[in-house]
């Protein structure tokens, strides 16, 4: 145990990770039943707070089911910008009888409980040490909304109204948002406005509004947007010039392909007039819903072989199925972009919950000796830029590139910097020879003449007979010919090793935040960032100073090695059971396992600051 034992005494053991609640600093949990339309109410609140210029986050904890099961929405407001998942709440809106017990338990002492007081307070919701706010939501909605289905939906808007009064939300912003949302449907617009007002007025009239937990406008969101990572990943593919997507539906990746289709329909269609005068809409893209994930990646590889930028998006089970073709692309050196929006495994696991548990399987996917380039975005902004980057890397290195997003990033709305695009961007198509270049060669040999990155030049079918060669997943030599000779075979696979090593200096460099003098480092990845950064701040306040490194790509660059070497010990924080990121560091950099310790979280909910603080403290104490 070399981890700074001496620091232990300096630690403050009160619940520092539970941000003291107050103005612009609180967390709310909405407990709903899925399929009842609560999402729009919760989203309304999230977005209104965002528009008031306050840092906010919303985490949707939903079941793998369409209707009738518990679903939660957790909203955290934090003026300092700490928006990792909270683990205790200042306000609980309890709309689901099935989960009353755990909902009320998640409430902090002194917190607020809002329930539908059309019926007597259920005994499971009783708690002496909290403030109970009964709003007769159902009763309030009975008269204005006679349809029972409508009423179920609008009851949610009514609680949003009440909450907005309690938190002191800018009523004009909230109301304006409803106008925007239903601008094409006056009936819905007005019923939503009515429901909002009912709730709002009830709270104003019956409670002391605002509560001590409330918002106060800030101006920090001017250059921010509120967006999910699957939308931005799809945008990244559009901006990278991807033309072919092969995909198969799977939660939580589905909305990438669906968004890509929608975006392409918006930006990449044009009308042509047929000879008979009718108008046809033509598409500068092809989105192919495949029969399964094997086919999806097969289509991507076929399209990439033919020269298109192509990608697929999937999640764990899809990656398992793609294993064989990933190896084919690796060995034949065909670019392929795979976006893996990770969920909880193994097997079907919990499809609507988050983990980062496909790191190993992706790094070494397929049988035989293989290794792949991985990108690890941490938020929707990076999903955009890394998705685009994935195509450059895939084509530059002629190999599969996997972007490992996750359900938290992909499906929740995050406040991030506005996306930006450099119009001077030039796509890196890699070494593709055109007819003029071919004409200058005595002959074309597919796997010969590597450049400094150990990449050889390729040609595209349909273009020039001189560039014709035979792509094969079976043994081939540097000329592209079939071989079963040990030397000729090794020659090619040895180049692949070196090529992948070179990629380390092309993937996005790690984000490092060092303080002078700290000899402990924390290493993390992807969606852990917010919780880890907040945890480090809390630990710092308690006198434990740790340096920070977030990895953004694999293979690991020497800068990663240097960070580890510069510290006595490092703690790797990640969301899986088997410490997979730590494993990759050990294997790829040859780090002594004793120098890397783990804080793991793998229950399926987005990482909370609390679990990171506690995890690190436990290690330091040991």
């Amino acid at each position: 145990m070399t981890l700074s034992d001496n620091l232990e005494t300096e630690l403050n053991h009160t619940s520092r990770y539970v941000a003291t609640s107050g103005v612009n600093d609180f967390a709310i949990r909405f407990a709903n039943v899925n399929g009842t339309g609560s999402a729009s109410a919760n989203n309304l609140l999230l977005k209104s707070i965002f528009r008031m210029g306050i840092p906010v986050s919303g985490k949707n904890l939903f079941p793998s089911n369409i209707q009738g099961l518990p679903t939660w929405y957790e909203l955290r407001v934090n003026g300092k910008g700490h928006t990792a998942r909270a683990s205790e709440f200042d306000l609980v809106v309890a709309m689901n009888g099935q989960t009353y017990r755990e909902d009320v338990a998640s409430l902090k002492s002194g917190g607020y409980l809002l329930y539908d007081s059309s019926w007597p307070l259920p005994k499971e919701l009783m708690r002496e040490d909290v403030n109970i706010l009964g709003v007769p939501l159902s009763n309030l909605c009975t008269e204005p909304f006679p349809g029972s289905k409508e009423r179920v939906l609008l009851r949610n808007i009514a609680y949003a109204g009440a909450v907005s009064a309690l938190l002191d939300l800018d009523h004009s912003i909230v109301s304006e948002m409803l106008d925007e949302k239903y601008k094409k449907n006056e009936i819905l617009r007005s019923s939503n406005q009515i429901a909002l007002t009912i709730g709002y007025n009830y709270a104003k009239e019956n409670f002391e509004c605002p509560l001590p937990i409330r918002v106060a406008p800030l101006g920090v969101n001017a250059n921010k947007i509120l967006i999910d990572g699957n939308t931005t990943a799809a945008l990244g593919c559009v901006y990278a010039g991807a033309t072919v997507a092969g995909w198969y539906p799977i939660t939580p990746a589905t909305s990438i392909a669906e968004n890509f289709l929608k975006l392409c329909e918006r930006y990449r269609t044009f009308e042509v007039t047929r000879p008979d005068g009718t108008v046809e809409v033509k598409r500068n893209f092809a989105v192919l819903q495949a029969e399964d994930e094997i086919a999806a990646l097969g289509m991507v590889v076929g399209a990439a072989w033919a020269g298109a930028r192509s990608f697929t998006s999937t999640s764990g089970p899809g990656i398992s199925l793609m294993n064989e073709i990933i190896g084919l692309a690796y060995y034949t050196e065909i670019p392929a972009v795979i976006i893996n929006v990770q969920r909880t495994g193994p097997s079907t696991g919990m499809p609507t919950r988050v983990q980062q548990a496909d790191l190993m399987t992706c790094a070494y996917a397929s049988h035989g000796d293989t290794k792949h380039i991985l990108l690890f975005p941490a938020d929707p902004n990076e999903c955009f830029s890394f998705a685009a980057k994935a195509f450059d890397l895939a084509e530059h290195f002629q190999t599969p590139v996997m972007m490992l997003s996750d359900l938290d990033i992909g499906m929740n709305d995050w406040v991030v910097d506005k996306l930006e695009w450099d119009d001077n961007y030039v796509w890196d198509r890699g070494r593709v020879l055109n007819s003029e270049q071919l004409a200058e060669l005595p002959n074309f040999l597919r796997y010969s003449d590597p450049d400094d990155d150990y990449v050889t030049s390729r040609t595209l079918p349909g273009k020039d007979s001189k560039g014709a060669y035979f792509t094969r997943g079976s043994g081939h030599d540097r000329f592209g010919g079939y071989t079963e000779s040990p030397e000729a075979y090794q020659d090619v696979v040895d180049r692949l090793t070196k090529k992948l090593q070179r990629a380390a200096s092309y993937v996005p460099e790690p984000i490092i935040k060092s303080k002078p003098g700290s000899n402990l480092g924390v290493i993390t990845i992807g969606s852990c960032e917010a919780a880890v950064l907040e945890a480090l701040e809390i630990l710092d306040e308690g006198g434990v100073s740790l340096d920070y490194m977030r990895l953004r790509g694999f293979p690991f660059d020497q800068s990663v090695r240097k960070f580890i070497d510069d510290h006595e010990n490092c703690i790797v924080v990640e969301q899986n059971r088997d410490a997979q990121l730590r494993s990759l560091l050990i294997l790829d950099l040859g780090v002594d396992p004793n120098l890397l310790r783990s804080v793991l979280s793998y229950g399926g909910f987005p990482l909370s600051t609390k679990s990171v603080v506690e995890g690190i403290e436990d290690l330091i104490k040991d």
Partner: protein
Amino acid sequence: MPSIRKPLIPLAPLPVNELGLTLRDYEGGMSTLCAGCGHDSITAAITRAFFELSLPPEKIAKLSGIGCSSKTPTYFVSGAHGFNSVHGRMPPIVTGANAANRSSIYIGISGDGDSLSIGAGHFVHAVRRNVNMVYVIENNGVYGLTKGQFSATADVGSSAKKGAANETPPIDPVILALSLGATFVARSFSGDKGQLIPIIKAAVEHKGFALIDVISPCIQFNNHEGSTKSYHYVREHEIKEIDQVYIPPSGEITAVLPEDGIVKVKMFDGSTLAFRTLPPHYDPRDREGAMHYVNQARLRREIPTGLLFIDEDAPDVHELNSTTDTPLVDLPYESLCPGSGALARFMEGFK
């Protein structure tokens, strides 16, 4: 190129096609299949059909899965790009390639194992999507490359080389494709180039998925007595009741057909297919009729060959997708990237 070596110096100048290319230009590497393998004959038929069609070699894309059959794309048109992929997955790979570059002519070569066992799901969906390609099943009723296991096309009662008889009913790719709405369905025999070459030509011209199921004896593992995919058996049981001549767009008819029982089909590119059908009322545009005909023949242990069904009007994968006429690979980046302005506007929706 079949495995018999050709003399290096041709004795007389070789005939050339419209592109000024000779048959040699449509050949590929030396075959490494067993001497006498049916697959080599199919290779030769493809070579000749492509030569006669004057296809520009660089416009041909030849793909395959894994198997003896799947090795054959190396043996024709060296000037064409080829892709020997993985077992059973050629259909999606062609689908993707075709989506990316619709201007190439795609020919996929597969085996009965490759297409109807491991690749069955993909085969079904390539038919359904009407992917514009020539799809050849080199059907020998056996797994050649892995040395003689029964495939899903082995007939009941067909015996393996070691004597065991197959019990499980076969999948007939022709019936399967017809039932799935395939738009071009043919059957032929590797030993019958006279029939196979015009079928290949027609398949190339067909807009959409063109299946050619070619019975192709495996002389190594499935050419013995008792096999229903042997040369002997097929020669005895084949009925060439449906025959056709391919008439190129120019309209020049190179073969004369008896006027009796002639059916002409106009192809997408203006060429014409003329059928001579022996059963006088056979209608190659009647899907159910074709199924019935093939099913009945099977009961009689007969194998009708020829172009059995064609539907030139069905939309192909690109019509279904409204893909632009320009191959996607040729679109300049500018036409693909909406630019920073559009992005800024898009961002407004997320404020």
